[in-house]
């Protein structure tokens, strides 16, 4: 069973909400990225690992800057695969999804990319510039093996597109809380509650909310709708403030996860 699906099933059994953090691979270096991932094992349910790209059009200033610095420090997809390999060989069973732009996949070659994802235990892919209409090639390559899943995004203006997006979705569905890019402080779309309810009603898999979340209390208004949430830009901010100390990652994640399940 896919690691994400397995974890989602466990959470459901325990009646718990999922907590997901985002970190850019290679910020400030691959060694510390590995430490930050390992420190969250058993706490954070899924790690979203950002593969840096020169032109991250779905990201706000925090992740743009993180991406830029990671590239300057030599981070690449190849090195991120090496990091995954090392983590898995070391016994890390933390579910990990890659958040990356499509050109990085095309450049690597779709078939080679999928093979490498399976070999190194990448559990899912979030590709923000690849709407369902453009997923054919990647989905064809992913077919027939559950190791790596395509994770779908839904936005507040997806409306009649929601059923089409959900029909092929696996693992969890990533609901964007606001229009635009990552990291705009808790400024959720005005219709976010009704939109999340709509997705939840139609979804056969857990519904996660992301974009602009800092503290567990930010999602209180939708706690009865969503199955979990994702913290990206703010998590990077915390890492920076603490000199990318893995202990700080662990503390933040532990507190958030506890509060999230006490809302």
């Amino acid at each position, binding site marked *: 069973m896919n690691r994400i699906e397995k974890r989602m099933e466990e959470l459901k059994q325990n009646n718990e909400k999922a907590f997901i953090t985002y970190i850019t691979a290679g910020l400030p270096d691959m060694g510390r990225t590995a430490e930050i991932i390992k420190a969250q094992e058993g706490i954070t349910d899924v790690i979203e690992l950002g593969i840096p790209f020169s032109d991250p059009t779905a990201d706000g200033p925090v992740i743009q800057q993180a991406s830029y610095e990671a590239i300057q420090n030599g981070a690449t997809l190849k090195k991120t695969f090496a990091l995954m390999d090392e983590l898995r060989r070391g016994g890390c069973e933390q579910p990990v999804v890659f958040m990356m732009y499509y*050109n990085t996949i*095309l450049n690597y070659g779709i078939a080679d990319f999928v093979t490498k994802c399976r070999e190194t235990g990448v559990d899912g892919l979030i590709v923000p510039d690849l709407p369902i209409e453009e997923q054919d090639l990647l989905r064809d390559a992913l077919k027939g093996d559950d190791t790596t899943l395509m994770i779908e995004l839904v936005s507040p203006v997806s409306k009649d597109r929601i059923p089409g997006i959900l029909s092929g979705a696996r693992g969890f569905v990533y609901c964007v809380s*606001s229009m635009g890019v990552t990291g705009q402080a808790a400024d959720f779309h005005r219709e976010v509650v009704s939109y999340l309810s709509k997705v939840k009603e139609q979804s056969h898999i857990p519904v996660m909310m992301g974009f602009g979340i800092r503290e567990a209390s930010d999602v209180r208004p939708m706690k009865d709708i969503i199955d979990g949430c994702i913290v990206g830009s703010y998590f990077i901010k915390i890492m920076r403030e603490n000199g990318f100390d893995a202990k700080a990652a662990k503390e933040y994640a532990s507190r958030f996860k506890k509060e999230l399940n006490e809302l």
Partner: protein
Amino acid sequence: MNKKAYYGEYGGQFVSESLMNTLDEIDRAFEEAIKDPAFIKEYQYYLKQYVGRETPLYYAGRLSEKYGTKIYLKREDLNHTGAHKINNVLGQILLAKRMGKTKVIAETGAGQHGVATATGAALFNMECTVYMGSEDVKRQALNVMRMEMLGAKVVSVESGSNTLKDATNEAIRTWAKTAEDTFYIIGSAIGPYPYPKMVKEFQACISREAKKQHFEAEGRLPDVVMACVGGGSNSIGMFADFIDEKEVELIGIEAAGKGVDTEEHAASMAKGRPGVLHGTRSYLLQDEDGNIQLAHSISAGLDYPGVGPEHAYLHDTGRAKYVPITDDEAMEALMELTRLEGIIPAIESAHAVAYAFKKAKEMTKDQSMIICLSGRGDKDLNTISSYFKGEGYLN
């Protein structure tokens, strides 16, 4: 896959989910509009009375004599605001108005598309924000002032390389946030479908007129049609009506900067590989990890690391040929045109002129070529001056 979004294997709609319904709305509104005689009539009215179309197809007598073939210049430099960009802006802004949008945004490199958009926004009373890389804001101060005079807000983008590519990223981000009331006016033949199609439609007036004018002058089709290619808006407009005329040779001229064998050029067809940027799949300058590389050209308007998807298709099918011209060759041609015909072209357009001189060598005196003179050179005087003083160039 949305097949109609593709030119062969190029094009598509590589944008975030939050923009997909927006693209669909634009597509439907655009297809309706161009079949609506009232829309076309209004668009034509502004092209004629406001832009000053049709533009002349000028027979460059002295150049023709010197280079031994008939050289015609399609004078897009005579348009209001000084370049072809306004043709497309008016089409898109009328569409935006028709869709009930109240705000427009645009990206700009050299500032020509920004000025054209600010102009259209002033004319139709729309709120306008233009995204411009902070490097370009510095080197195109006059165009920044023009935009501000016209009432636009110019946002200086500090991200990545601080140039056109980053300004486009920022415009896309803003659009994804504000698409409910904001129309994104893309100036190049790039972006997600239907943008490449819209830009071609609204620039096609260039070739429609030129074809008719050439017939009036010569009683036949031209042998060669050429235009410079950055993102590819003036060239797709110049090619549009000739694509089905197989006997007409189509040539796009890319910016080779300091040379295609140096690190500093903008020749995405000569040196790039297919990839995805700014919503479309096409030829791109990228490094071994798939990160987009910086383009370099003395002409800010050609300083873009990609090219429109239809050009990629015309390239692969062999229908059009794409050739590089260096900064030095373009500047020499700029002076030649200035001295022989009294026309100071934009440095972008001078690239096409430079290749025309090479091409003329294989043509006879009875054959003819049309060069799209996409813009005038007034905006480039600082760059031209520092180039000839040997100070290098601002770009």
